[in-house]
């Protein structure tokens, strides 16, 4: 948190020296920090692909494809779509759970998306700074090793809360087919105490999908933009785990 990195002048590579040194012996690497540990990166990409599959199949469950021809026994279109949805949903749930466990074991950055330090004034000041940066009111963004405070807020609500909501409502809906004796119903049946008509749960699950669509759009845009604009690596960091500062 709050580890805004001041662009330290002593780590700034001496461009003239590097240029003069043809053999590259003095080529000082750009400062890099190991941010995202392997489990974090694996969870990120598994969750990303699961969510894409879930969105496509989920939409097709709500709005099915045109009718297929032939005997019912020869086709299983909805069956396969629903299978893919349930499978991807359970993969997402497992990796989301694993990601929570890793927050206890992993480094400081692995915990960032699970809380918001709303009680700290510094946090809000930096959120405001980030908002001003996105509103083109700041010339230079601050640099952070992990998420910036605005990104942390977006990750916490847009990913952690929304996905948790989708997992809970998803398992509750799944329990309708699995039956009231299933573990899914025992664990998640309380959702129907909040919304007695499961049609409402369907509606909320549907709205949750669109909320995640919006999150994904903003997430990808922000990652690409910051990668270009904020003089630090973003996209490749989620592959290599290292954040490079380009100054």
């Amino acid at each position, binding site marked *: 948190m709050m580890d805004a990195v001041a662009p330290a002048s002593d780590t700034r590579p001496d461009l003239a020296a590097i240029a003069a040194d043809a053999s590259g012996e003095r080529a000082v690497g750009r400062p890099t920090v190991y941010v995202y540990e392997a489990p974090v990166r694996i969870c990120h990409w598994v969750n990303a692909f699961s969510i894409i599959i879930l969105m496509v199949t989920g939409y097709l469950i*709500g*709005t*099915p*494809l*045109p*009718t*297929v021809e032939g*005997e*019912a*026994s*020869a*086709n*299983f*279109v*909805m*069956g396969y*779509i*629903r299978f893919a949805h349930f499978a991807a949903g359970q993969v997402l749930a497992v990796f989301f759970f694993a990601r929570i466990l890793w927050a206890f074991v992993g480094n400081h950055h692995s915990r960032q998306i699970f809380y918001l330090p709303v009680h700290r004034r510094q946090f809000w000041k930096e959120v405001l700074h980030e908002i001003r940066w*996105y509103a*083109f009111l700041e*010339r230079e963004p601050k640099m952070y090793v992990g998420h910036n405070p605005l990104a942390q807020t977006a990750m916490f609500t847009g990913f952690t809360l929304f996905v948790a909501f989708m997992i809970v409502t998803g398992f509750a809906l799944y329990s*309708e*087919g699995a*039956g*009231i004796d299933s573990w899914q119903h025992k664990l998640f*049946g*309380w959702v*129907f*105490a909040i919304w*007695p*008509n*499961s*049609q*409402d749960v*369907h*509606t909320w699950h*549907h*709205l949750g*999908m*669109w*909320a995640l*669509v*919006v999150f994904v*759009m*903003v997430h990808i*845009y922000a990652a690409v*933009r910051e990668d*270009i*604009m904020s003089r630090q690596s973003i996209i490749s960091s989620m592959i290599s785990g290292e954040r490079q500062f380009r100054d």
Partner: protein
Amino acid sequence: MGAATETFYSVIRRQGITRRSFHKFCSLTATSLGLGPLAASRIANALETKPRVPVIWMHGLECTCCSESFIRSAHPLVKDAVLSMISLDYDDTIMAAAGHQAEAILDETRAKHKGQYILAVEGNPPLNEGGMFCIDGGKPFVEKLKMMAEDAMAIIAWGACASWGCVQAAKPNPTQATPIDKVITNKPIIKVPGCPPIAEVMTGVVTFITTFGKLPELDRQGRPKMFYSQRIHDKCYRRPHFDAGQFVEEWDDEAARKGYCLYKMGCKGPTTYNACSTVRWNGGVSFPIQSGHGCIGCSEDGFWDKGSFYDRLTNIKQFGIEKNADQIGMVAAGAVGAAVAAHAAVTAVKRLATKREDADHNS
């Protein structure tokens, strides 16, 4: 009316039913309740030894469709249920007594069978204006309901009205029609929702209570598990077409003639808990989906306020417009997409401008 010490068996034999037919009935009931092979003899034994349970059947704000359904029960026949299984001491719609004579039975039952009788309620009490929208015997129905609930063993909430509120509770609910469990909170309440509930489900619940002397196992929402633990969709005979991806797209298309799944026509089977697809209606003749019309979800809470019966998705009114989740989602995603594009464009322009500035500065 005071012959509540009579056992079921003696009533049954008095009506000229042979012992053989009596056992047939017991086996049939055991089978229709999904009980094990020993249950038939237990039912027979119970009917031979137990006194009939007094039932008070009251009508609040309702349309009597529950009674209409009830009197069409085939297994068991309603005549058996009313004349032999229970002691239906009061039902203002079908009883011979009227006026003070009828109302006297309520006091008599309360005094004589305190804590022993079942209170079956069809419809619900409107609470607005002190309950004046439903006057029964010169008093607001809600007062009568509270009075009779006081000494009842349990309450059966017949139908969507008593269970959830139903159409008279539809927004803006001017009479403030309120389901039974929101008015009576200190008694066990069995919800038997549906508009109306299936006849055999109604008599099945009555049979269970009179047979075992206890209430059936209820689910989280107070419905008997034996009839309401599965969705219409789970046991629908058109389910294979759903899994295959074969849907009716128009009411008069080829798929409708072939009997494909009605999901796209707004069938609420996937969200409706009831026994229609197994027990069916009118003695097992048919049920809505079999007749080519989707389920409207009449046994679900709030089914009357969820938009069209012919749409898959619920209308969401909280936004002040009647749109469903997809329409709202697409607008939101579109707006955010446009915002992102605009933001990217501004970013690019700014970046170019800054670069040019830097270049000018350096030269």
